[in-house]
């Protein structure tokens, strides 16, 4: 079974803090993704990576950055957290272009005060 894990289930941070969310997958997947999920808006893509050290902006990259130094790990960084970044953050991975089904982690619910 594919396993995608996220470093925290719940996080509470202060405005202006730098926040790190980590995601690890154990199935040697090429592609990794970060989404945020908000009521009524569905899943929106923040960033994705199709290879180590490669990254592409998604639909809402402003205020975020990512890092992929190893194939299994994809980190999302909130450079200076703001209250409008309070959300559910979901990490996903997919094998490669021959098998594009995404598998999701359990999610991190982030509250920025």
């Amino acid at each position: 079974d594919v396993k995608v894990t996220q470093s925290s289930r719940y996080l509470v941070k202060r405005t202006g803090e730098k926040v790190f969310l980590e995601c690890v997958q154990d199935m040697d997947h090429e592609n990794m993704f970060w989404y945020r999920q908000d009521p009524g808006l569905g899943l929106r893509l923040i960033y994705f990576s199709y290879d180590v050290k490669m990254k592409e902006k998604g639909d809402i990259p402003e205020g975020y950055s990512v890092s992929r130094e190893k194939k299994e790990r994809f980190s999302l960084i909130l450079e200076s957290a703001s209250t409008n970044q309070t959300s559910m953050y979901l990490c996903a991975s997919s094998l490669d272009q021959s098998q594009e089904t995404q598998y999701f982690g359990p999610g991190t619910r982030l509250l920025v005060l």
Partner: protein
Amino acid sequence: EDQVTQSPEALRLQEGESSSLNCSYTVSGLRGLFWYRQDPGKGPEFLFTLYSAGEEKEKERLKATLTKKESFLHITAPKPEDSATYLCAVLHSGTYKYIFGTGTRLKVLA
């Protein structure tokens, strides 16, 4: 513009009352259509991938079908444990970006 629309937004069924959820899509060159189940406060759980019109996939009480414009998730004789939000997503040619619908919230009453 690429778009995915799911209907209804919410659905209440009695246990054993079969029904269908709809996912309509407009995308230039479908590479795959995906169904997920999401429980409150958790990440989406993969259910099915469909690649071409006419394809069908089944798993327990769920059956997914695909046409050139829409997909249906049929739920036969649902049980309360089938209560969840069901998400649909599409991937089109030449991109890594998946487009998600906003989901159908299903509640099955005992």
